[in-house]
């Protein structure tokens, strides 16, 4: 409402001015129009760059089109092909793995945050060191981990050899590769959740902790019934960010395996890129169909989150 405050005062002063000219339609309706004027640029760009492309993708997904020549209408052809495509199911399954395992970042971040939330000399330094992986680019994280995993010279290989075993080729084996990438992805994500919890812990009310203590709550009980409920906003945010991060995981896969070996570490977002935009792709229609499926999956989560936030807002007022 702050935006509307200025025109309002103006209108009142004008009204008070003696001998004022007859007011135009705009002047009469300033109060209603002003917020829309302020919103207009954002709404315009959001429509052009976000809303319209969503519908455009849906539209393209009904065509077979290489991005250059004539687009050919195939109706639901791309979708029926998708249902018959093993690579699609591999990607879907990997997306599910990402979703479930990536959420481990939330409890892990909480644990580290609790551990770091104490007053010891140099704590700021430790905190920033723990936060460090989130600062460096995902591309760098991916690169570092692919060196770690290299069975010939990586640290994983060396450890294996120390125990006299033959090191596995984590990124070259269809059974390990997705876990290997998710593990690498967890490293920065845990740091992110940790920061969310650290700020949350700052806001935990000391009175309630004190009251809990008087009632004899300690350790696990204190955490479960006194601290965690107060951390709910941080937890909610951490889950939202992690779920969305898991569904749009792309950079790690592009850097570490390019979806390989033979497509076994693909997820929907990378599969879409591969089909629509990579060197051997340029099947715009098929890529769009994948994008639509991914969008629908995301929509389930996003609408739940939005609904949840809306409920909170309502209760707050």
């Amino acid at each position, binding site marked *: 409402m702050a935006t509307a405050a200025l025109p309002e005062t103006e209108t009142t002063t004008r009204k008070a001015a003696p001998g004022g000219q007859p007011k135009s339609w705009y002047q009469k309706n300033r109060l209603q129009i002003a917020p829309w004027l302020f919103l207009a640029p954002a709404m315009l760009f959001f429509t052009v760059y976000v809303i319209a492309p969503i519908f455009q993708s849906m539209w393209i997904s009904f065509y077979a089109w*290489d*991005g*250059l*020549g004539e687009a050919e209408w195939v109706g639901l052809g791309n979708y029926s*092909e998708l249902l018959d495509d*093993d690579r699609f199911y591999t990607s879907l399954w990997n997306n599910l793995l990402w979703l479930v395992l990536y959420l481990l970042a939330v409890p892990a971040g909480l644990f580290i945050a609790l551990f770091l939330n104490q007053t010891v000399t140099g704590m700021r330094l430790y905190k920033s060191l723990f936060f460090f992986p989130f600062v460096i680019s995902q591309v760098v994280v991916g690169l570092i981990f*692919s060196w770690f*995993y*290299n*069975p*010939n010279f990586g640290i994983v290989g060396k450890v294996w050899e120390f125990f006299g075993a033959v090191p596995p*080729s984590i*990124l*070259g084996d*269809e059974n390990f590769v997705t876990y290997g990438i998710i593990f690498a992805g967890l490293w920065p994500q845990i740091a992110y959740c940790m920061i969310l919890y650290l700020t949350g812990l700052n806001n935990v009310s000391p009175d309630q902790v004190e009251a809990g203590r008087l009632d004899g709550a300690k350790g696990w009980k204190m955490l479960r019934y006194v601290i965690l409920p107060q951390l709910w906003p941080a937890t909610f945010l951490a889950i939202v960010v992690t779920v969305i991060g898991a569904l749009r995981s792309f950079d790690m896969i592009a850097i570490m*395996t*390019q979806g*390989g*070996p*033979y*497509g076994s570490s693909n997820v929907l977002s990378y599969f879409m890129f*591969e089909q629509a*935009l990579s*060197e*051997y*792709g*340029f*099947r715009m229609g098929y890529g769009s169909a994948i994008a639509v499926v991914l969008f629908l999956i995301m929509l389930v989560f996003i609408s739940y989150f939005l609904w949840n936030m809306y409920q909170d807002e309502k209760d707050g007022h």
Partner: protein
Amino acid sequence: MNSLFKTTIVGAFAAALTLSSAFAGDLVINFDDPNPAPKAGFEAAVEAFKAANPDVNVTVNINDREAHKTAIRNFLSADAPDITAWYPGNRMAPFVDAGQFEDISDLWASDPNLSTSFEAIKPTMTRDGKQWGVPYSYYQWGVYYRKDIFDKMGLAEPTNWAELLDVSKKLKEGGVTPFTIGTKFLWTAAGVFDYLNLRTNGYEVHNALTAGEIKYTDPRIKKTFENWKELMDAGGFVDNHATMSWQDAIAPFANGDAAMYVMGNFSVASYKDAGLTDDQIDFFQFPEITPGLARAEEAPADALFIPSGAKNKEDARRFLAFIAQPEIQGEWNKTIGQLPPNSKAPINTEDKFIVQGFETVSTASGLAQFFDRDAPAEMAKAGMEGFQEFMIKPERLDAILERLDKIQERVYK
């Protein structure tokens, strides 16, 4: 004051005139290789053209190879240069079909040099009976091997399948993996497949396969994979190849853990960068498998094309005719260590790989471009993934071939 004003006006006018006349002779070229040698070779050719045609003002944009592959789709329709680098075979098909490349059959017909000295490579530059570009370079594929390791173990260059298997077994017994390869980016596996198939079934069958005329489950193609399996059982390829690029795979080759590499000639510079000398490495043609089969080779070409949206097509044609000349092609390819497609061009006789490569391709009965240029993009991608999967899980062969059949049916419909 007045006269000063006048001179300024006149000067501006004159400048505008020269500017517009220069504009008429502007030639913009988008090239796709910023590495030192390819860049030097290309720039030398451009300098020679400038010296011979002082009226043409040449502008050169050199982009990274991978970036170029993505950018070409935009610049062809949005802001077309007068000449662009691209690849022949099926790789040019989407642009030709979409009408984005200029038909230069007239140049091929009218230029005596182009019409007589490019017979071997002309079919790859042809689509729908018309020519679309001019090749400036190509290179041989084959087996690069560690001569010092072979000598130490008393092995000779294999000339047929039994000898290759024998060499592989002996290397393996001596603690050396026969072949290095890095299949992370898939295409290296296609090189091995192409050769096994060319040697098992010959050029006609290989072409029919990449043209979608025979199935992957065909007994002849299955035979190719059986041979591949045999090679793997005889010692085969380095472990973990799925995580390595072709450059990464040079490491085991350079430190003596692996002794052979099925590769293109562009890789020689990288072997030398890895510390190997001319005495340590040598080349042999991929050995015969089916006795008596005419020998075909892989020889991918690089070429220059005129986009149909080019502003200065006249000078672009002049440039293409210019770089097709034997001396220019000879000099250019000497710099980049490859072969000139012009059959009358001199080759660098001091480079033993070039000499052997020339011998290899000039006596070949047919030239294949490469799996990912002969087959359409989608088929190529699926095929190469299949080859990689086969190399890791050979027991899945039947499932892989059936999947490829399914994709083939859709792609070539």
